[in-house]
C-alpha cells in the first residue's frame, strides 16, 4: 500500500508544479467573483422585488453545474496524457523499476488526479457558498456535500479517459469520453425535461413514454448532478430506472478501473 500512497502524493505534487494550475485557479475564482452580483439576489420583476435568497440560490445552483462541467472537461484533458507523458518523461520507469505493482501505479495516478481536481472543485464551490453567505446571510448547507457527491463524475471521466488512452491517441480518447458523457447528458437531460409538468402538457403522449433500456443503464452523470442539485435544494430526488445514479456511476467506475488495470497489466513498457 505504501507505494500507492506515494504515487498519489507524487501525482498531486507534480500537478501543483504546473503554473497553468495556479492560472486556472485564479481565473476560475476571478470568474466566480466577477459574477458575484448574480448571488446578491437584488432583482425586480414586473415591479415586484424577487426574494433575494431564492434568486441567489438559483444562480448558485446554475454555477454549481457549470463548474462541474468545466471540471469534467479539464480532467479529460489532463487524464489523456497521464500514461503517454509518464512514458516520455521516464516516470513509468522510475516507478516500475522499483517494487511497485502495476495496479499501484495505475490507481495511484488516477486517484491522485481525482483528489487534486476534487480539491480544486470544492474550493470553487466553497467560494460560491461564502459569497452567497456574505450577500444573503444564508448558508447553503448541502452545497459542499453536493460537490463531494458530484466528484464521482470526475472519477468516472478520469477512469474512462485513462482506459481509452491505452488504445487510442490522447486527444481522441478524451474526445471519445467527453462524447459518451455528452450522450448521457442529452439522454438524461431530455428525460428530466420531459418529466416537467409544462412540457408534458405541451407534448402530448410524452408522459407515457418509457425510456429505452440502454438509457436506463447508460452512465448517469447527469442524474448524479441532478441528485447533487436535490441535495442543495433539499428536494426529493427522482431518477431514471431502478438503480440510483450514484450506484450506476460507481459501478461504471469499478468496471473502467478493472479494465484499465487489466489492459495496463498486459502492456509492454
Amino acid at each position: 500500500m505504501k507505494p500507492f500512497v506515494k504515487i498519489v502524493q507524487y501525482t498531486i505534487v507534480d500537478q501543483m508544479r504546473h503554473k497553468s494550475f495556479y492560472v486556472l485557479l485564479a481565473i476560475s475564482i476571478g470568474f466566480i467573483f466577477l459574477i458575484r452580483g448574480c448571488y446578491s439576489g437584488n432583482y425586480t420583476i414586473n415591479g415586484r422585488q424577487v426574494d433575494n435568497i431564492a434568486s441567489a440560490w438559483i444562480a448558485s445552483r446554475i454555477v454549481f453545474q457549470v463548474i462541474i462541467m468545466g471540471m469534467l472537461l479539464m480532467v479529460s484533458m489532463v487524464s489523456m496524457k497521464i500514461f503517454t507523458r509518464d512514458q516520455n518523461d521516464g516516470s513509468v520507469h522510475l516507478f516500475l523499476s522499483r517494487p511497485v505493482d502495476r495496479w499501484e501505479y495505475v490507481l495511484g495516478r488516477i486517484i491522485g488526479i481525482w483528489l487534486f481536481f476534487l480539491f480544486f472543485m470544492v474550493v470553487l464551490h466553497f467560494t460560491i457558498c461564502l459569497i452567497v453567505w456574505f450577500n444573503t446571510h444564508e448558508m447553503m448547507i448541502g452545497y459542499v456535500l453536493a460537490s463531494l457527491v458530484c466528484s464521482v463524475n470526475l472519477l468516472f471521466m478520469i477512469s474512462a479517459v485513462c482506459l481509452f488512452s491505452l488504445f487510442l491517441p490522447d486527444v481522441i480518447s478524451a474526445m471519445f469520453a467527453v462524447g459518451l458523457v455528452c450522450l448521457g447528458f442529452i439522454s438524461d437531460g431530455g428525460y428530466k425535461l420531459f418529466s416537467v409538468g409544462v412540457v408534458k402538457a405541451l407534448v402530448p403522449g410524452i408522459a407515457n413514454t418509457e425510456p429505452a433500456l440502454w438509457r436506463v443503464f447508460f452512465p448517469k452523470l447527469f442524474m448524479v448532478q441532478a441528485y447533487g442539485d436535490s441535495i442543495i435544494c433539499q428536494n426529493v430526488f427522482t431518477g431514471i430506472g431502478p438503480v440510483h445514479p450514484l450506484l450506476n456511476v460507481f459501478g461504471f467506475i469499478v468496471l473502467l478501473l478493472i479494465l484499465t488495470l487489466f489492459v495496463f497489466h498486459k502492456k509492454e513498457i
Partner: protein
Amino acid sequence: MGIKMIVLDSVTKEFGNITVVDHVSCQIQKGEYFALLGPNGAGKTTIVRMLMGFIRPTSGTITINGIPGHETRARKKIGYIAEQNIIPPYLSGVEYLIRHAALLGLSHKDAQKEAERVIQIVSMSGSENKKSHGYSKGMRQRMGLAAAIMGKPDLLVLDEPVSGLDPIGIRQVRNILQDLRDCGMTIILNSHLLSEVEKTCDTAAIIHNGRIMINGSIDSIVTQEENLEDVFVKYVTQE
C-alpha cells in the same frame, strides 16, 4: 558452483511474427560481473526489459534470486539504469533520487541520507539541486547510476550505462562498478564497448539474432583469439 542470481530458461520473446529473443538460456551467479554483447537489434535490450518485468517473455521463465522475474518482489533488490536514462524534467536530481529511495520503502530522512551518499559516489555534488532538464546526457546517466545503486541492491542491471559519457566519466563509472563488484554485487552490463567489457567483466554472452552464440568466462571466450572484438566479429558475421 556459486549461488544462482539469475536463471533464464529457454526464454523467447516475439513481437508479432518477429522473434526477437529465441530460446535463450543462461545462468548468472551471485557476485558475477556479466556482459551482454551483441550488435544493434540482437535482442539485448529486450532481455534486459524482460529481466526488469517491463515486458513478459512469450515463453520460457526468468528467475531472479529464486523469485519469478515477473513478480514485484523480485525487483526489491535490483538497481536499473536504462539505455537513455530519462529523468522527469520537472524534478531536480535530488528529488529524483529521493523518489527512488521512497519507493524502496525508506523514510524521508533516510532517503535524503541515501541520496547524499550516492550523489557523492557518482560525483554529482553541486548539481543535485538543478532541474534535470538542464543536465547533459552524461549527467543524466550518472544520476541514473546513482538511482540504480540506491539501497545497495544485490543486482545491478545496466543498459549502456556509459553511453554519452566522456572518457573521464567512463573511467569513473568503471571504478564505481569495480568497487560495487568487489562488495559482492552482481552486475549485468549491456554494452557495445568491447574493450571496456574485456577489462572489467568476468563473464559474457554474445547474442546475435536473438540467440546466444557463445557464453562463458571472458578468458574462455578469448583464448584462441586476439581479443574480444575479434570473437565478436566472428560470431555476428557468421550465418
